[in-house]
């Protein structure tokens, strides 16, 4: 090995952390191959000649593959590589609340690094089965279509799924805004969004007085895919840490389809064998271990996750969508058709599900909600059959139930940032219960 031995010895003397070195032998966009670097552990943090940082991605008998996370300068073959002899970790500041941050501890609006940084591990150990307790406290969104029929509990994972421009992000922002004075720390995690979108979201949250309890953690399209890939894991590690301190945390992940595509890109360039739709076979595990961080912990804290998935042409049965549906505790499906009809939020009430249901609702809300859902679905089914019939020939009972269905649909409409309280919802839909009693 023709390493510059003197320099290595020199470096070792200067800094006790550096005890192993190697040399770059191959460079591509976000991976490098290194020879040497003998005394190294899997997932160790690595520094490349002060120009870039990364972590050990694979150890082979004669070489080590390093995944790059931060690049400041061009890497050349022959550059020296040092292992820092510690697990790769990201940085986070406790001052992040109210800010837009990234996983390296930068305040992106102010354009500088935070001062008081702590290390955060990337997707550490899973939460033991026995440390989880049942999810039974509600987390209200203020949207009657959700709180009544597809309620969300603290510690629940509820997917928000739909086409482009159907109001997915809006539902999540509404939910954040509705957490005011409810002792919930909110995190909005942007994956591969544009800087403009994220800044707009930041302003929206500020205008609605929600930024004082919200952290926006962002990664952008023009950054390294590794960074976007790691962002949600880091966000959830932070959330988990807060949960263990008994805080309730709400995490929005916008969005996981993008995350899957980024992971596919990384996997294919590192020669993993592609599976269905060219995604790697462990794409399910990649998302499962992320979303399994959502739970009600025995410490009293909780992590609620609302992941977003973007679909094409309203198809929620594609590979990534069904994977995530099978991980989450329910889904809110948004429909383009409803959105265009002006029925906002554009929830498809038939396809949406909450697997926790009444367990996370107040008794009163659940009573109204379950009847509302049953009647609404029955109405949507019947509506198609009698659409062509002459209204004057319908039986009075049928006509009345169709009229009531129309009223329900109308009453479920709600403008953005206009949350309703539990009692407002109950009053608005009290007629559902009344009619059933009479019948």
């Amino acid at each position: 090995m023709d390493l510059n031995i003197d320099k290595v010895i020199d470096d070792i003397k200067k800094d006790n952390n550096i005890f192993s070195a190697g040399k770059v032998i191959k460079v591509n966009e976000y991976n490098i191959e290194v020879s040497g670097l003998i005394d190294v552990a899997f997932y160790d943090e690595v520094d490349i000649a002060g120009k870039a940082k990364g972590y050990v991605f694979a150890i082979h008998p004669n070489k080590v593959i390093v995944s790059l996370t931060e690049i400041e300068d061009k890497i050349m073959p022959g550059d020296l590589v040092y292992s820092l002899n510690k697990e790769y970790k990201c940085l986070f500041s406790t001052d992040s609340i109210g800010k837009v941050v990234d996983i390296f501890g930068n305040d992106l609006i102010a354009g500088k690094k935070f001062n008081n940084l702590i290390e955060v591990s990337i997707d550490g150990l899973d939460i033991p089965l026995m440390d989880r307790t049942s999810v039974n406290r509600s987390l209200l969104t203020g949207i009657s279509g959700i709180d009544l029929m597809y309620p969300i509990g603290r510690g629940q994972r509820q997917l928000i799924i739909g086409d482009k421009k159907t109001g997915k992000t809006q539902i999540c922002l509404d939910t954040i805004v509705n957490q005011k004075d409810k002792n919930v720390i909110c995190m909005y995690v942007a994956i591969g969004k544009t800087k403009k979108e994220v800044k707009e979201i930041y302003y929206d949250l500020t205008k609605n007085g929600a930024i004082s309890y919200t952290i926006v953690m962002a990664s952008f399209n023009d950054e390294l895919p590794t960074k976007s890939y790691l962002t949600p894991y880091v966000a959830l590690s932070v959330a988990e840490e807060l949960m263990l301190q008994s805080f309730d945390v709400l995490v929005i992940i916008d969005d996981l389809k993008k995350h899957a595509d980024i992971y596919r890109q990384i996997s294919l360039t590192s020669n993993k064998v592609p599976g269905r739709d060219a995604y790697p076979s462990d794409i399910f595990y990649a998302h499962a271990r992320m979303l399994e961080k959502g739970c009600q912990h025995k410490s009293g804290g909780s992590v609620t996750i609302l992941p977003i998935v973007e679909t094409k042409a309203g198809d929620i049965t594609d590979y990534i969508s069904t994977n995530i549906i099978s991980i989450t505790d329910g889904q809110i499906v948004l429909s383009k058709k409803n959105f265009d009809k002006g029925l906002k939020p554009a929830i498809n009430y038939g396809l949406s599900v909450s697997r926790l249901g009444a367990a996370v609702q107040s008794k009163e809300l659940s009573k109204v909600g379950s009847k509302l859902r049953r009647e609404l679905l029955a109405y949507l089914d019947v509506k198609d059959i009698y659409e062509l019939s002459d209204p004057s020939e319908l039986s009075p009972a049928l006509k009345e139930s169709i009229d009531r269905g129309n009223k329900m649909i109308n009453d479920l409409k709600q403008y953005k940032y206009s949350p309703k309280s539990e009692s407002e919802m109950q009053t608005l839909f009290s007629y559902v219960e009344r009619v059933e009693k009479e019948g």
Partner: protein
Amino acid sequence: MEVGKIISIFEISVEVVVSDNTIKIGDVLETVDNSKYRFEVIEITNTTALCISLNSTRGLKKGTIVKKVDDGLKMEYSDALMGRIFDAYGEVLDNKEFKSINKKFINNSTVSMKDLNVESSMLKTGIKVIDFFAPMQKGFKMGLLGGAGVGKTVLIKELIYNLYNASKINSVFVGIGERSREGKELYDDIVSSNLLDNMTMVFGQMSKNPVVRSKCVQTGLVAAEYLRDEKKGDVLLFIDNIYRYIQARSEISMELKEMLVGNGYPSSTAAEVSKIEERLSSTKDGTITSFQAIYIPADDYNDDAVQNVVSYMDGQIVLDRHIAELGIYPAIDVFKSTSRLVDIDKIGERHFKLVEETLKYLTRYQELEEIIAVLGIDELSDEDKNIFHRSRKLRYYFSQPLHVSEQFTNIKGEYVELEDVLNDVENILNGTYDNVDENAFFYIGKYNAH
């Protein structure tokens, strides 16, 4: 005994240069300095051993010395396993004291043809749509197929409620690659209703690495085999979800850089599945009746892995998203749900004829729906109108309030006798209930004519 040194690490695949030629496939190795890292040998050459790591390899150093600790993974094989909850490697999870009496390797052989027993008696589930369309027998393997979020787990939980809670027959629950929250809730439910004594649970949930998820089926099978062979009795086995086993195997194959075939499954899928399914058989000592949830990826019923597992099933219940969309639960597709028992000699003429007639009505109903979408309901002939309305009643009638979903429906769960189902279906078909509003059949047990 030191056996070698680690030379390569990539996620869960670890290669060891061996200094000892006694290493065999299946051996369990461990790093000498601590037991945080353990490996199972899956391939050997005269100088190296390729292993899969049983735990995360994070922080594992190149050059670490490994020693051999056992000839294979083991699971408790004694009465001590009853009423306990285990992980995939046979360790108890419930934080209570555990004293092992006897352990057995989790890789066991399948049942030979000589020992196999196929004669058996009927088994009622109390769920209308299953008992009617896909009746069960002791020793059957019932596949519960469904895409994401159409209610497989709820159905498994209801079966546990109706079958295990009622009979307290020895049971094993294996949770593979499913939600940890549901696993814990199921455990809590069983503990709080004081029913844990005859239940053994094994978990390898979706937050675990693929090795854990692929091993926990075999670990669960050891428990079921103990109850059958040593306790000499009937066993109920619930697996949620067997597809995740194949999925975990594919992940391992990918990490080992094996060539994958269609949709990312290893070419050995069929062999892997048979090693599991052929162990789940009934012998003269006792029966193993299994309910296996099968996830359908991307709603693709023809997926290779799904079809592979289904070929071992004696019956299948298929859950359908379109029916779930209508709010009808359990959301069962009656056209695809059936069992080996649906035969005029086995269930009797009356039941068989009713199934045939019902399917005939529902098939016509689907055609009529298309006609109505174009012409409206008023254009139908009287006979078709009858078929249309009776079919809708049947469709509603096969919804059922389940005990385990009381919290969603706010309706009390019901166990329904098959005889009642046959009577009700007969009455709907022959027009006795033509004057009853269809909503009267929605979410009921048996129909009570006033």
